[in-house]
């Protein structure tokens, strides 16, 4: 007990030296508090983002690979991904989620498409050219707010659909009405007697559409208000569009391996849509990287300075240690007293450091995030320049994380306390290791 009492008295007695040590410990702790608060909150945000959205996988035909393989006789024309493969690909533990959508070109004898000026006629290789599109399970625009259901309900069963306000008004269609649509048949197939699929559909809702129609090329099928939306099972034979979302970008190689084993042809490339992910969480990850680097630099430099200072402080106190040893105090007790002094100084600095660090963490993170966003935006602007048609322009519709609300959680507190204890112990051990070299007789003889 007297060791602790004596250590506490020594903290006050040697206040000049201890203020110097304390200043360094405070600087390290305050920096660590800021860094850990930002890091832990960033991690949580990134994890939440991943959990919510995942990382989208793109499966694209590589024309160059196809040409190369065709020249070598390893690939034939007409290689595609079948609907069964799309569905099989979705069965993977590496995926956070998957969305299986389908789509069909359609026309109708009773529903006039917006922008349709003449009668139905053959065209573009079809026996009757399509005037509209029907999408199954494609609800993304409702999620991002580009479409809003204004009347009725969303389709949940086969043969239920929602249509746009414009299409409903043009054709005087109300919720509960039944409409007949036809799928398309290519002219050669029609000549062989194939007939188009017939869809008798109940309108369960009408939506407002704010989604922009990009590059209609004079076709009414490209007008977004002409899209009839239903569940995928309404069109069992229609071409599938699948979207796969990985749990983590690093799983891409393992996922590609799975797809190859499930029959994905080598002419298809498998990639992640990391640019989308980076556009949203990139600034946060960038900021996290900066503060972590800064924290490690401060920790390493701080620890070195602290150890050096402690060693010097102990050298200055070797006479005192010699006297204590001459009085019969055991080495372990001397060491314990010195360690407790360091822990006391650290505890005081910890309290002040946490308080000050908590105050300055939010403005620092806001400033850092703003800088990171600017950098990320510049990179995105360069990357997406001229690529809007490829569909990548939708990234601009996903807002990057612009603000994080820092909180000092229990985990952060524990990490800070652990780091502080380690620092105190490192400095204490550096000092204590010196004590073993100080035999009282030598110290006292030197003094005399």
């Amino acid at each position: 007990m007297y060791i602790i009492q004596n250590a506490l008295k020594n903290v006050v007695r040697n206040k000049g030296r201890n203020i110097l040590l304390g200043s360094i410990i405070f600087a390290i702790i305050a920096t660590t508090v800021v860094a850990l608060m930002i890091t832990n909150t960033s991690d949580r945000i990134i994890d939440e983002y991943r959990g919510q959205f995942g990382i989208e996988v793109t499966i694209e035909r590589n024309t160059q690979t196809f040409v190369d393989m065709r020249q070598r006789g390893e690939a034939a024309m007409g290689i595609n991904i079948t609907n069964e493969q799309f569905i099989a690909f979705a069965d993977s533990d590496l995926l956070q989620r998957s969305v299986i959508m389908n789509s069909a070109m359609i026309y109708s004898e009773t529903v006039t498409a917006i922008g349709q000026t003449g009668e139905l006629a053959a065209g573009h290789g079809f026996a009757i050219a399509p005037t509209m599109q029907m999408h199954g399970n494609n609800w993304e625009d409702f999620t991002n707010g580009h479409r809003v259901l204004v009347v009725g309900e969303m389709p949940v069963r086969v043969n239920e659909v929602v249509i746009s306000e414009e299409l409903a008004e043009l054709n005087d269609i109300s919720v509960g009405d039944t409409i007949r649509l036809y799928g398309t048949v290519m002219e050669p197939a029609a000549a062989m007697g194939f007939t188009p699929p017939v869809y008798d559909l109940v309108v369960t809702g009408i939506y407002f559409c704010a989604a922009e129609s990009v590059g209609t090329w004079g076709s009414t099928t490209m007008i977004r208000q002409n899209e009839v939306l239903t569940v995928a099972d309404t069109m069992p034979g229609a071409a599938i569009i699948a979207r796969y979302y990985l749990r983590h970008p690093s799983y891409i190689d393992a996922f590609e391996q799975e797809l190859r084993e499930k029959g994905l042809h080598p002419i298809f490339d498998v990639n992640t849509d990391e640019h989308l992910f980076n556009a949203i969480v990139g600034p946060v990850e960038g900021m996290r990287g900066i503060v972590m680097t800064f924290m490690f630099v401060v920790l390493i430099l701080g620890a070195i300075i602290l150890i050096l200072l402690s060693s010097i402080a102990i050298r200055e106190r070797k006479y005192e240690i010699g006297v204590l040893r001459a009085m019969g105090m055991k080495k372990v007790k001397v060491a314990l007293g010195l360690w407790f002094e360091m822990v006391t100084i650290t505890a005081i600095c910890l309290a002040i450091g946490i308080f000050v660090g908590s105050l300055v963490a939010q403005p620092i993170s806001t400033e850092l995030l703003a800088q990171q966003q600017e950098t990320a935006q510049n990179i995105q602007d360069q990357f997406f320049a001229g690529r809007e048609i490829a569909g990548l322009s939708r990234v601009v519709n996903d807002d990057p994380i612009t603000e994080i609300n820092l909180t000092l959680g229990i985990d952060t507190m524990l990490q800070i306390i652990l780091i502080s204890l380690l620092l105190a112990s490192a400095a204490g051990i550096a000092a204590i290791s010196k004590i073993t070299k100080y035999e009282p007789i030598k110290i006292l003889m030197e003094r005399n």
Partner: protein
Amino acid sequence: MSILTLNNVSYRYDGTKKNVLKGVSASFEAGKVYAIVGKSGSGKSTLLSLIAGLDVCTDGKILYGEKDLKEIDRDSYRAKGIGVVFQAFNLITNSTAIDNIVLSMQISGSNERDKKSFAYGLLERVGIDKETADRKVLKLSGGEQQRVGIARALAHNPNIIIADEPTGNLDTDTENDVLKILSSLAHDEGKCVIIVTHSKKVSSIADEVLGMKDGKLTSVNQGK
């Protein structure tokens, strides 16, 4: 009855071949003042550090009662068995006089309930009043520091008091006071007081004077 016995004690410093102490034998009894005299370099202070348990002899034995100092816990011996008064005082300088005494009692594991009161009493006995006792050691005069040093040596009530040139830094009046205290400790309280000194005045209070030359004990004379 011998309280401390030196049996053929020799000592050489690490890395040297020459013995600074060569087969010293002597015995010390309770209730007596011993003076160890000799020229500088004769080995007096080395002998004192061995007796104080600050170092161990290279050859021979130092027996505390019947226990060899080499075989016992010398930290405990220094904390409880002996009290050392140094020429350079060797107090904790950034601490108060009273704290020095209390700390010594705590290290020795003293059972005294009110250690501070006991320490004030001890300091008063060596001529340090309460006001002076509460001052930092650095603000005390040399004589006052030596008195504090003596009080600290007595704080744990040891059987043996060792003093290395205890009056070397003191004026004549203070020297007399310190010698009176040391003499009283032996003759009134039954302690064994061993003083290393150059001073004839100090030797004059000794019951026995041990002369040293070139690391050897050359003479043992009855003092006073």
